[in-house]
């Protein structure tokens, strides 16, 4: 018995040693072909940033052999750490919102704008796809029709249609008010304040669940946009002059109430491109990886779909699962990396 026991221990020790040496050898092998090292990535506390961080870190780890350390936080601390060279890569940056702080560091050369991550964060007026197709609704002008307005009947104001608007108190509520007047929509539709953004989401989800027509202001990229099919209504194109004139009217209404309205101009919201950012030092030291980060772009509908998956109440909530789902079901990432890297990633799935 004792001999047998000793034998077992010996076999176990040998096999454990063997595994250790094997593992350490293979680790060395990876390190010798690739010297990526550790990537310090910043992530933010909202859904789309989480998804981009999960996808790009998966690609960096499995495709380029990097180790990715993700630090999550709100805008101010994460951006401060990035300016301070404590974070190498950010895969989602709301460039237009933080431009005043970002510009000095960009000009100093410590960081640089690594291009677009999502081409458009849209704000616009939307109509559910079924109704839009049935009545051929393509632009805000198509909405100026009593028969169409009757579809979106506002039970609180019989005879009027209801346009779900922005939350009153937010600037976009007043912007929508001015737009309605400029486009002549105010004769047909109420500028309906949903109270809170959660209530607006619930109203849209409810209308889709029941198959009712809905006409609403909304924005992307958002999880809800990935779950419902809505058509963006065309508006006059954005110009700096028109937007400036409209903003002046909006400000005076905010100060003095709706009576301060004067006819001026109205145009669409400008689509805001979301960008990426990298440390110049890191990018210079890692040309292959930084090429991937520069090439990384997802289309807005794809991001909406991923957000819908990520925020699904029953199955979502897992960053890595969403990233894996994207990498196995979509192919748009394959053009962002060299073919051999793409193969490694597919193998890792």
């Amino acid at each position, binding site marked *: 018995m004792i001999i047998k026991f000793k034998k077992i221990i010996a076999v176990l020790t040998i096999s454990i040693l063997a595994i250790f040496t094997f593992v350490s050898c293979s680790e060395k092998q990876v390190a010798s072909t690739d010297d990526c090292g550790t990537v310090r990535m910043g992530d933010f506390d909202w859904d789309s940033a989480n998804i981009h961080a999960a996808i790009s870190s998966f690609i960096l780890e499995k495709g380029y052999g990097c180790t990715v350390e993700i630090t999550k936080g709100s805008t101010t601390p994460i951006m401060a750490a990035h300016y301070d060279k404590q974070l190498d890569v950010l895969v989602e940056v709301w460039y237009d919102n933080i431009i005043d702080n970002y510009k000095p560091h960009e000009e100093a050369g410590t960081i640089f704008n690594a291009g677009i991550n999502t081409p458009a964060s849209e704000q616009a007026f939307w109509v559910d796809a079924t109704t839009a197709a049935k009545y051929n609704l393509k632009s805000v002008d198509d909405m100026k029709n009593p028969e169409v307005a009757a579809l979106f009947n506002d039970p*609180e104001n019989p005879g009027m249609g209801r346009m779900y608007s922005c939350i009153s108190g937010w600037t976009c509520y007043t912007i929508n008010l001015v737009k309605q007047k400029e486009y002549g929509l105010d004769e047909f539709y109420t500028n309906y304040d*949903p109270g809170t953004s959660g209530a607006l989401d*619930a109203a849209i989800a409810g209308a889709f669940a029941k198959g009712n027509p809905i006409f609403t202001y909304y924005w992307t990229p958002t999880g809800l946009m990935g779950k419902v099919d809505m058509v963006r209504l065309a508006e006059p194109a954005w110009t700096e002059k028109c937007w400036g004139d409209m903003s002046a009217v909006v400000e005076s209404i905010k100060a003095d109430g709706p009576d301060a309205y004067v006819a001026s101009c109205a145009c669409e919201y400008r689509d805001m491109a979301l960008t990426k950012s990298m440390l110049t030092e890191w990018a210079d030291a890692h040309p292959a990886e930084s090429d991937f980060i520069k090439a990384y772009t997802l289309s807005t509908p794809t991001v909406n779909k991923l957000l819908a998956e990520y925020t699904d109440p029953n199955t979502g909530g897992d960053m890595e699962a969403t990233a894996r789902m994207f990498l196995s079901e979509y192919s748009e990432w394959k053009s962002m990396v060299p073919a051999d890297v793409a193969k490694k990633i597919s193998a890792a799935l």
Partner: protein
Amino acid sequence: MVLIKFMVKFLKKYSNYILYTFLFAIFIFLLVNGYQNSRYKPDSLMSVLGSTDWLLNWPKWLDVRLMHWTNDGFGSFIKAYGKYFDVVNDFLLGLIYGLKGILVLAPWPMVIGIVIAITFFASGRSLYTTTFVGIATFFIGFLNPVFWDKALETTSILFIGIFLCMSAGIPGGIAMARNKRVRNFFLPVLDLAQTIPAFCYLIPGIMLFGLGAVPAIIAIFIYAVPPLMRLTDLGIRLVDEEVIEAADSFGASSSQKLFGIQLPLALPNIMQGINQCTMMALSMVVIASMIGTRGLGDEVLLGLQQLNIGRALEAGISIVLLAIVFDRITQAYGATLQSRRGDREINKK
């Protein structure tokens, strides 16, 4: 026959045990079902028992699936029956806006005059209360001219809400007082209704009924009916046993006892219930502004969202004034009822 008799006897004797066994079986089912469907299910039960980790931290697989069932159930429910809720929505909105239309059309001095007249008679011709209520009513509009119509809108929502509460709450309270089983069933339901955060049912309410006044009325009903039911129940049970015995000895029927003795004697308590119901309904109207319900709550929310403290305070005070008007009228009426009863008793002596 003997067997059936035996069965009935057996069931009667052991019914408690059968119930407990049944409840225990449900608990076991929930445990097993949660474990089976968990995303974090360990590879085998043995690996769980092997370590003590699961004793120290609540294990992720020990999770009842209420969330999934609710989401799935609600999703298919709204798909199948959502249309019917639109009908209810339109009906209730019609009531509210019909009432509001009448109130808004009436000249404001007339509305104040009617309020004063009601107070005068309800309070048993108390000059003090009447003057106070009259001034409070005047100040609602005096604070901000915009508030007058909004206060009327809030009032019409309140009226419909309170009407629903009374038509369900008072019969419910009577049933509770007369039958112990009914009371045992309703008490936990009332506890639930009073404590569950309003947003738990406001958001599903939006999806069923759409934004606006109707989910607010449903919320008012859930939140404000419990005090009315409890106080009706209490009032009836507090009626003197000896009075009931006297009625029994005169051969009064059950309904004669209810309408001739119990309800009249419980009336002050029921009025107190209606008063509490009104106050709670008013506080819910403010919360409901977050789901797009028009009225005074709307103004508070707007003030907060624009950081306009003065506006929020003005609106807040006007809600307090509205509450004072309702409170003094219902309180005074309750007091009048009580004093009249006192007078009658004195007259008899």
